[in-house]
């Protein structure tokens, strides 16, 4: 909730600042800047670079602020660290009461600290000392060092002067103190608003973990092997799918018989999500490479078939007529007119197929694999290694994004006429 409001505030604040504050010296001087109507004109809406940068920085800032990162200049209040104390009141069986103090030392998770020294005091209830890890809690067996203990009938009746019954919790300045059913005290120091690393580690932890895994590997394979295997599966599956799908699409676009024969199959398989095929593929081909590649092949196949088919059907008949009138043979028309004419469609299909394959491979590795990006985060999640999980997700996202950018560059280079006529 707080994170969301902060996010919204930054969104609106930076919009107002950049738009109004910087408008003057960021004036554009190109053709689009002269358009007075840009609402609904898609070509006139271009991503504001500043907005993109602020957006990414904001995500990291909020992430850092809520995880106590060194990278974030401000943090939401973190868990309490250091020494604190609270008092409790013990009632002996004879009705006499005595106050005692618990001295608590809260240290970061995973570090050990000396238990604070407690001077003896006058009453029958002695002060106690306890060490707690931040965000955790600790039982205080307050009667261990007391003259009259629980077996004698002593019990805690108040914490910080507030009466308590077993099961009740008192919010003290030091943290939450709960009187357990067995009569001991459970102390949970103030947690603050930050996330525990086990839920969400700080960005630098994730980065450090990435560096560590890149150097030493994870689960018998280096980071590059994990990512490389995922990529290899995607490329192999996609290449096979394109190799079969494109000729099949051409055949379907050019021959009635092929169209009739494969139409029901393609139209049936198209809406089946590749993820739904994972169980069947595992049954048939096991969890090895073959199964993965078959799955990705199937994921790419229909997309590429349909793209090639519509690429062929989309050729303007005037172009085919013109080629015929210029004396071209059927094969020449196929090679010089129909194939190049279908390339833009095929590229669009290839971009979609690569995206689907990348998503599918990660999902398939989540289900079963010995190596791969998906397997890495799956295993890490079993061990609660949230930093590895987040690192994996970020790497998967970056690679997916990079694949799309590469495809777009290839498209610009190979089919520069796309969308131009």
């Amino acid at each position, binding site marked *: 909730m707080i994170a969301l409001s902060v996010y919204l505030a930054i969104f609106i604040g930076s919009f107002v600042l950049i738009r109004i504050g910087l408008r003057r010296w960021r004036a554009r001087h190109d053709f689009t800047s002269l358009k007075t109507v840009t609402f609904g004109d898609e070509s006139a809406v271009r991503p504001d670079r500043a907005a993109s940068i602020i957006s990414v920085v904001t995500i990291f800032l909020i992430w850092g602020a809520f995880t106590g990162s060194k990278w974030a200049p401000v943090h939401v209040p973190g868990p309490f660290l250091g020494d604190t104390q609270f008092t409790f009141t013990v009632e002996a069986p004879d009705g006499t009461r005595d106050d005692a103090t618990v001295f608590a030392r809260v240290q970061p998770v995973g570090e050990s600290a000396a238990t604070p020294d407690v001077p003896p005091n006058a009453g029958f209830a002695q002060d106690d000392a306890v060490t707690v890890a931040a965000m955790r809690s600790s039982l205080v067996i307050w009667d261990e060092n007391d003259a009259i203990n629980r077996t004698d009938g002593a019990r805690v009746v108040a914490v910080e002067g507030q009466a308590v019954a077993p099961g009740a919790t008192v919010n003290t300045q030091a943290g939450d103190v709960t009187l357990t059913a067995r009569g001991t005290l459970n102390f949970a120091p103030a947690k603050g608003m930050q996330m525990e690393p086990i839920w969400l580690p700080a960005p630098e932890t994730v980065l450090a973990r990435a560096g560590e895994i890149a150097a030493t590997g994870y689960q018998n394979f280096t980071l590059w092997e994990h990512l490389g295997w995922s990529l290899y599966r995607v490329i192999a599956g996609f290449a096979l799918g394109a190799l079969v799908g494109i000729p099949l699409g051409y055949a379907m676009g050019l021959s009635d018989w092929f169209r009739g024969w494969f139409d029901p199959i393609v139209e049936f398989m198209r809406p089946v999500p590749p993820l739904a095929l994972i169980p069947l593929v595992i049954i048939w081909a096991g969890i090895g490479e073959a199964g993965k590649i078959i799955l990705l092949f199937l994921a790419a196949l229909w997309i590429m078939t349909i793209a090639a088919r519509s690429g062929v059907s989309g050729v303007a008949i005037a172009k085919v007529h013109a080629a015929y*009138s*210029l004396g*071209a043979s059927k094969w020449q028309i196929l090679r010089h007119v129909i194939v190049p004419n279908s390339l833009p469609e095929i590229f669009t299909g290839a971009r979609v197929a690569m995206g689907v394959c990348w998503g599918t491979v990660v999902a398939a590795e989540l289900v079963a694999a010995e190596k791969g990006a998906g397997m890495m985060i799956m295993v890490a999640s079993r061990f609660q290694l949230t930093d590895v999980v987040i690192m994996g997700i970020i790497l998967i996202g970056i690679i997916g994004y990079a694949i799309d950018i590469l495809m777009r560059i290839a498209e610009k280079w190979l089919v520069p006429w796309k969308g131009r006529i």
Partner: protein
Amino acid sequence: MSTLSIENISMRFDLPNGSHVQALQDVGLTLNTGELLSILGPSGCGKTTLLNILAGFLAPTQGQITLNGARVNGPGAERGMVFQQGALFEWMSVRDNVSFGPRMAGQREAQWKGTVDHLLDVVGLRDFKDKSVYELSGGMQQRVALARCLANEPDVILMDEPLGALDALTREKMQGLVLKLWKETGKTIILITHSVEEALLLGERLLVMAPRPGRIHREYHLPFAEMGVQQDLRSVKKHPEFAARREEILSMIWDMEEEIMGRSAEATA
């Protein structure tokens, strides 16, 4: 002398709903080499259908076409076609478009280079030969289409509203270019147009067609194309006979359109 003869062509389209359209009825005509024929007529009178039959994209339901005595059945390189627009290959450069015909015929670059470069000069696109066609304006694209057709050295050139998508000024320049190419190459040219002026300027012979069923309504033999080769097109248009012909043909087509409207009004009444 080679001839293109259209022997009593009829074309009937059967529609899926059981009815049919008589797009052409008994169209007959003979053209000699080097003749320039323009075809004019109200929309839907079968001009495009006739041209598609000549090109070989459609087979007539009756009659036949012969070129130099050989029967036409299918498209062929001896009958080149220039389309209104969108028939260039945008994945090829201007030069590759123009040399497409010779290349498909298996000629080597040395064989076609001279012709292609000359044609690019003639249509004024020498400096654009390595550009992609999508970088050219509409008028330039039509010039590429003309050059591409000519590079293939067809006997007959068929044009379906080749200048229809151009602005008035570009159109006028292109008309001059068509006349010039006609005279220089001596090709037989058939040109469909919607503009009476263009039909008068670019037709030694002018065919006015009538709709429903599509047929030849009247044929003219005109001097303006020859005149246009010698002099500026604007002065040809100022010729008194030009104006008279234009009025005559305009009112003829106007009457046909009126009749169509009247008939369809009756049909709906």
